[in-house]
């Protein structure tokens, strides 16, 4: 039982990070229909930027975080701008284009930071706490807290502010929203900045948990991406649930069968997709004849 709870708690930390990645992916998708395979590598770039500012330049963690968010925001904005002509044309081409960007970002990271990566210390003293026999570290709590706060803020922004509502309207019906006076272009840009900010936040938080290196995108980003799809493409609560599920599957698979944990995770994911393509919270869209 203790083992079960301990694994559960362990899975929640990474699950929260996956959920952040998934949310960034989802908000971009639902606002503009861009399926951004490069998101995984934007997370990695965010992690590197935060690590550089925090470890190498000795800036406070919060400053590093903000710096990473600003730069990745600009990056996301540029990706959208270049691929915009494909948005209305061909989803598969756009998908391949974002994969192209992912490859470029990964190699750019190797060029700038080398292929070895950076070990990041935790920004707060990482003390293991014993809660009824289950070990929880303070940094794990910080990750959970910051993730939860970010998710709550995003929810409040989308649901309770005028700008957020306008963005949702733009997502549902572009032309109707334009007719109501919503600036769809700026709403897209906003979505991208928020999406990339989520990526940078996830990258910065995961740095001390893993080891920041150019293949981070493959391991964190792809799972976050898969989590978004598992939860329901474009759904914010879906992203959170999907992320947590991924964290938990991984944690439970890691113990007894560590060599097969990735295989198990993705086979479970593939099966889940076959049972319900639209994910947990997704809506079924009908291909109209």
């Amino acid at each position: 039982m203790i083992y079960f709870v301990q694994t559960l708690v362990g899975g929640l930390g990474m699950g929260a990070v996956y959920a952040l990645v998934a949310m960034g992916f989802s908000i971009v998708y639902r606002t503009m229909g861009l399926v951004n395979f490069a998101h995984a590598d934007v997370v990695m770039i965010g992690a590197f930027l935060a690590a550089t500012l925090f470890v190498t330049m000795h800036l406070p963690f919060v400053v590093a975080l903000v710096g990473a968010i600003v730069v990745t925001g600009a990056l996301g904005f540029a990706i959208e701008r270049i691929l915009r002509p494909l948005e209305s044309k061909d989803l598969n081409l756009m998908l391949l284009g974002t994969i192209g960007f992912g490859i470029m970002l990964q190699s750019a990271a190797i060029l700038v930071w080398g292929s070895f990566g950076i070990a990041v210390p935790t920004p707060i003293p990482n003390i293991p706490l014993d809660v009824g026999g289950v070990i929880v570290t303070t940094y794990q709590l910080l990750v959970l807290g910051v993730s939860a706060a970010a998710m709550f803020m995003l929810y409040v922004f989308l649901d309770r502010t005028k700008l957020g509502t306008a963005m949702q309207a733009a997502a549902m019906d572009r032309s109707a929203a334009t007719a109501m006076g919503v600036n769809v272009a700026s709403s897209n840009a906003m979505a991208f900045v928020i999406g990339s900010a989520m990526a940078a936040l996830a990258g910065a938080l995961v740095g001390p948990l893993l080891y920041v290196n150019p293949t981070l995108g493959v391991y964190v980003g792809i799972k976050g991406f898969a989590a978004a799809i598992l939860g329901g493409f474009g759904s914010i609560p879906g992203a959170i649930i999907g992320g947590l599920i991924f964290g938990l599957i991984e944690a439970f698979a890691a113990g007894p069968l560590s060599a097969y944990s990735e295989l198990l995770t993705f086979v479970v994911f593939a099966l889940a997709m076959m049972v319900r393509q639209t994910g947990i919270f997704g809506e079924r869209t009908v291909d109209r004849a």
Partner: protein
Amino acid sequence: MIRIGFGKPLLVVLLLLLPFVLDSYTIHVAILIMLFAIVAVGLSLVMGFAGQVNLAQAAFFGAGAYASALLTTTYGWNPWLAAVAAVVATCVVALAVAVPALRVQSHYLGIVSLGLAVAFSSLLSNSDVTGGASGISQVPPLSLPGLNLGENHDYYYLVALALILVVGFALFVANTTLGRRFKAMRDDVLAASASGIEIRYYRLTAFVLAGLVGGVAGVLYAHNARYVSPDTFGLGVMFLLLAMVIIGGQDSVWGAVTGAVLLITARNLLTGVQAFQQLAYGGLIVGTVVFAPRGLAGAAMDLRRRFDLPWPSIPIPWTRRRLAPPPLVLDPADPALEGVALRIDNLSKRFKGVQALDGVSLEVRAGEIHGVIGPNGSGKTTLFNVISGIYRPSGGRVAIWRHDVTGQPSFRMSRLGVARTFQNLRLFRQLTVLENVMVALDRDPARAHIRYFIAPWVVLHKERVRRARALEMLEEFDLVDVADEIAVNLSYGRQRRLEITRALAAQPTILLLDEPAAGLNAAEQEGLKAMIRRIRDGGVTVVVIEHNMSLVMNICQRLTVFAHGKVIAAGTPSEVSSDAAVIEAYLGRGAAEPVTAAL
């Protein structure tokens, strides 16, 4: 007089002569290029032709290599036996990756296959069976009497032979029925299944072909390098393959080969600056999809069109026997085609909370043109979707020619003789006009593709017959001048005409037309009327949904009127137009009185 191309034989001769002028290192690079070309051709088949976003192609390559390496080292199998087993094993792996593709497509399939590929890499580097990160070494070489396959010079010929076979087979597939069905499915899934293509089967086949060639390349790699390790088959290689296929041109076999030649050559010229290479091919992918989505092959084709360049060929004095295509199978006097063509009984269709069809019954008599009219959203198109098998009905029955066909899938309805067009035009956009018609003319069941292996000449013969018949149909419907044009480049009116021609090519006994006059000008509408009458006179029963009243009143013998998912009236045009319920549905409550009074 026919012309025989000499481009391909010339390439083969050059390929075979190459080792005489190359030093041993360059031969090694050439082997690598050929192996990658084989894998890339596989990716082109599954992704470019069949439209399946497969990001696990590098894993297929790896599966073949690892299976062969494991069987020959750990289990001590004979290398050739192991090679065959490894290729079979790779096909099984490909089939496993294909299973999700039956349900999910596009980006969903992309992330699922990418996930499985990541899982495969992680399995290779973590499992003890595969030797972990250090891989498997001392893989024995293949052997053949008289050859030293441990040496690159002799091995080159083995790989060249494999490349020639794979490229030849891929070109054969690409230019005949299987490739055309792949492209039709890629361009429009609904229209493809309404043309009789069983989508599931073709998705699986595409993956298995990709696995087959990936496995062959993997085996050849393992016995040449004599060593396999996880990073040879990781995501980096997957992206390299993707770049080859996209830069070369996704739906082009030659494009994939060209991509492999360019990128492997560049990679070997630029060793030591690996990150820059990766940056460059990432950039090339982005540039290609944004500016030249059809890649080098597309650019080459445009050039050829613009300057009218022929393929290199020599004329030889030999006349090919002219083919007299068989007539269409319909005989208007056939006793089976009498009485009631289509009977709908108490049909209903519910979508979440919406009753789109509510107890609909109607009867279409053999040989008539039957109109279905009604306000927007009254369930007309839903009716067509249920009849043609795109939706399963929630209740009720559909019968054609007195046979119950309720709930049959779309491809089977096409094979049973029900063809349709779509309200918002669903052509195979990137196929030529001729190919669009040939897809529908092709009535062979999927299992007939076994001929690709056992009787390829039959495939070629059928192809010639089909082409002749398609040209004849294009002639009949005044589209022959644009036979080789890409469908999407046609004017709107001609696209509509092509869609009807395509539906007719499926040799239906019942043709469903969904708003065929939408967007046509007056002259085109007259042409359409004549066309529909001609189709009916050829023995086909026509059901047409239309908003254009003058057209409906003019050509239809009987009408069925829909409102709110129900049939509110049926009868001859004159009966229907004086029906109070119809006038009310169109003009609103209370309108009936004054309108009749005014008449």
